[in-house]
């Protein structure tokens, strides 16, 4: 009877999770979506306990473990700065990956303990551990890269594609040995395969450049879903399969969206090495002509005072220096004097999909003046001043003009059509993609070399004074 109860509970939880994701796709329903997710999770946990799937004797161990986990999660969620969201997301992915590896091993130990497990189950265990280990180590590397502990530059080993294939094949053979079970010690086979998969995860993410981080994080998001799904197959649990599949496809969609925003094929991101590949067309990328013209805060303040139409393009630089509150103040000043001030967000601005939106929301910028690339690209021609804050590749005109450029074909914000572009930047260095930016040499562009927050705060002071 309990099986029937459980399967009803799984169905309810699944429906709640689907509603949760559905709610998350629109601003108006997003909060309700989150609540559905919470309820769904409570239903699932309660069902496992009430459905007598856990021996009551173990509750004194289980409940404190959950309590500790919940407390840790809450502290992390409360403490995290919005600018550090990418790191938090990455580290959470690694937990799912590690949990999946542990569950896989637990399943193997249980199965070995109870007798001869079927080949099907062993295969499922191998798949679960494999994906889980890749997710775990990949997320850890992504986390370290996002934190800056590891360099954002892609690690390019010689023959890295071959290396990936070799490691994958080796893992596959070990998995086969493990499933057959009689050739070698299955513990050894599974153990070595876990390590190999972990190494593969490290290498896959290490080979991906910092500019591709939004895609990497979405990919890992997707993997963490697939790994849960694999665990569901292994444990014959439909809830895990369904939930994992939902998360997996959600992450996959985000990855596809991010890849499109960078005009990159998903494969080139999965297998890494962007930024070092030779450009597909002949001829070297053109070096920009002209000269970089610097400006100062007084000149910028003067231009903003006269401007009627202002667009702000935030990038990773705004996140790094936490300039969003100063930017918000600037927008308030501009709007108070009757000018139109809006934000233009590129899909891959920042290091996480939608990162800029979250930061602006944190500074209480109303979301109806935060526009997407497609919505605002047509408006630049009648914009008086575009303020680019710590963004580079996403406003690089060579994506459209220079077929030899590594970012050729990537959709970009066409800021150079505006009457005046002011680029706020710490230095002349090129962006994560390592591509020189002709925008800086454009006749209507002025460069303001300053830290984003410092510059914005001084600008606000000037406009107020």
């Amino acid at each position, binding site marked *: 009877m309990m099986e029937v109860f459980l399967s009803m509970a799984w169905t309810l939880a699944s429906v709640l999770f689907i509603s*949760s994701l559905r709610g998350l796709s629109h601003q108006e329903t997003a909060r309700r979506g989150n609540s559905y997710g919470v309820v769904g999770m409570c239903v699932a946990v309660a069902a496992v306990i009430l459905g007598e799937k856990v021996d009551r004797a173990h509750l004194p161990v289980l409940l404190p473990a959950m309590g500790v986990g919940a407390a840790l999660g809450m502290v992390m969620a409360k403490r995290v700065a919005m600018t550090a969201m990418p790191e938090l997301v990455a580290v959470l992915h690694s937990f799912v990956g590690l949990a999946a590896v542990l569950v896989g091993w637990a399943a193997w130990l249980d199965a070995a303990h109870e007798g001869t497990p079927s080949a099907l189950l062993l295969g499922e265990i191998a798949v679960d551990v494999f994906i889980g280990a890749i997710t775990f180590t990949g997320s850890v590397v992504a986390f370290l890269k996002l934190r800056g502990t590891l360099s954002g530059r892609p690690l390019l080993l010689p023959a890295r594609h071959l290396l990936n294939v070799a490691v994958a094949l080796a893992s596959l053979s070990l998995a086969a040995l493990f499933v057959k079970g009689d050739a070698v010690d299955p513990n050894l086979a599974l153990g070595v395969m876990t390590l190999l998969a972990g190494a593969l995860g490290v290498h896959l993410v290490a080979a991906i450049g910092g500019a591709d981080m939004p895609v990497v994080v979405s990919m890992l998001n997707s993997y963490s879903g697939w790994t849960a799904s694999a665990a569901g197959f292994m444990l014959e649990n439909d809830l895990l399969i369904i939930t994992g599949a939902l998360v997996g496809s959600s992450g996959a969609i985000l990855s596809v969206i991010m890849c499109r925003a960078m005009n990159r094929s998903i494969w080139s991101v999965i297998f890494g090495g962007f930024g070092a590949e030779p450009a597909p067309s002949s001829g070297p990328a053109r070096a920009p002509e002209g000269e970089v013209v610097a400006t100062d805060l007084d000149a910028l303040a003067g231009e903003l005072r006269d401007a009627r139409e202002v667009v702000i393009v935030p990038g990773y630089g705004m996140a790094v220096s936490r300039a969003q509150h100063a930017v918000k103040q600037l927008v308030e000043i501009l709007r108070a004097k009757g000018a139109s001030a809006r934000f233009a967000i590129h899909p891959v601005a920042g290091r996480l999909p939608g990162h800029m939106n979250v930061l602006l929301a944190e500074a209480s910028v109303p979301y109806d003046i935060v526009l997407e690339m497609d919505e605002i690209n047509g408006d630049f021609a009648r914009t008086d001043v575009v303020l680019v804050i710590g963004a580079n590749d996403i406003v690089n005109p060579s994506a459209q003009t220079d077929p030899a450029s590594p970012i050729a074909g990537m959709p970009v914000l066409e800021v150079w059509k505006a009457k005046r572009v002011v680029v706020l930047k710490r230095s002349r260095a090129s962006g994560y993609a390592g591509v020189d930016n002709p925008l800086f040499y454009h006749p209507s562009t002025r460069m303001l070399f300053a830290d984003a927050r410092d510059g914005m705060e001084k600008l606000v002071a000037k406009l107020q004074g």
Partner: protein
Amino acid sequence: MQVSIPREVLPGERRVAATPESVKKLIAMGFTVHVERGAGALAALPDRLYEAAGATMVDDPWKGARVVLKVRPPAERHDGTHERELIPEGALLVSFLWPARNADLVAHLASRHVDALAIDMIPRISRAQKMDALSSMANIAGYRAVIEAAHHFGSFFCGQMTAAGKVSPAKVLVIGAGVAGLAALGTAKGLGAVVRAFDTRAAVREQVQSMGAEFLEVTVAEDGEGGGGYAKEMSPAFIEAEMALFRAQAREVDIVITTALIPNRPAPKLWLRDMVEAMRPGSVVVDLAAESGGNCELTVPDEVVVHQGVTILGRTDLTSRLATTASQLYANNLVHLLTDMGGGALTIRLDDEVVRGALVAHEGRVLEPPPRVAVSKAETKTDTKTVAKTETKTDTKTETVAKTETKSAHGHGHGAAPAGGERVSWMTWAAIGGLAAAWIAMRAGVGPFAHEADASLRLFAERVTVFVLSCFVGWQVIWNVSPALHTPLMSVTNAISGIILVGGMLHLRGAELGAAGWLGVVAVLLATINVAGGFLVTRRMLAMFRK
């Protein structure tokens, strides 16, 4: 190093080559600055402002000067002496010089070992834009031309509907869409006039249209791009077509502003006597080329001519009429130039193409101008067709259509696979192929799991069904998520993937917690961090989004 700014001597010249602001910058660069008393008086820049900025006010600015900044070429002073004699030997003179017209002056300066930099010869390349005084002055002239025209024009520029009757808007034709022409277009448009422009260079069409003006074209295909941002002289056939266009326009327009110049040649005659006579009485012609002879046949430099009721303004002092702003921009151009030349440690480097282009006399010799550098960035199209208005319209239309297409593609086109159109995606074919392979494998009784029990295989197949359907549902649900919510979506999926904790819990079985049990406990702990952290941070984020 001493920089001197003498008072301009030409009657009617109100500009000055330095402002208190630019003096400050010069001093910051390491120059000492001497300004002749009263130099800025006509530009509303009294001596005390210069003094406050750190300049030394003197009666004889020429003494000890190493750099002399001027607006107009050296000329005879009212006391009979000539400025060209006053510049100390070896000093650097920076001013408008027009070397093609003033060969004698340049030769004289060279003979006196004066280094002469003609600001009008600065190459028009992007790097030198900030020192391009021709552009900054032309901008002012274009603005002032419209203001002068308005002064002599007996009607509104903008159309009005009043209780007393209707007034049509003025029609303004600008010939030559260079910097001055574009400034005139912008000003006239701002006053509410209907504006049109003609230029032989097809590349400027976009610029004209961006000012909200109509770009007139003739039917003859020829591009007048002459290098360096100027036009070249056109073929007779083209000129004939151009004249026919102008004659037709003359009957319609109220204001004509001509700005056509060809370097080192007299200005082309474009607005002929019969065109003036065809214009309505009360119309105004402003000839910005008056100094080089004028584009209009009836122009008399520096005079206002009225011919059959049409006023023709041949002013050559338009920039001077905006003396304060003109001085400010010109002084900034000079400051930029001196900054580029090394500031207080100024040196003349002949390998600097900007300096080389503008330097006309150096170390006792007259320098020939180097070849001009190309400036026009816009694509030069040669197939100019008839009047552009219709074309513009269709262009915008296509753009809108394109935009809607992208939008709809984003909105609906993603039901299943990202591939568009009617074709079935490769994924579908792959799935069908896989199904076929499975059938063959089942029939033959081979495959990796051939000896599994039938019941467990059936269960497996059911799970695959559940899995595939869930992927499909997920795919459908997540498309159309608004990009602003990508981060919250990710953190909520993070929380939901914490469902793996159920997997951990399922191992807490048996009387004793074995190794598997403990692994499960750790997994539960980790996954709970995800669940709690993910949901909470999502909540925190969503609370911040507001309309």
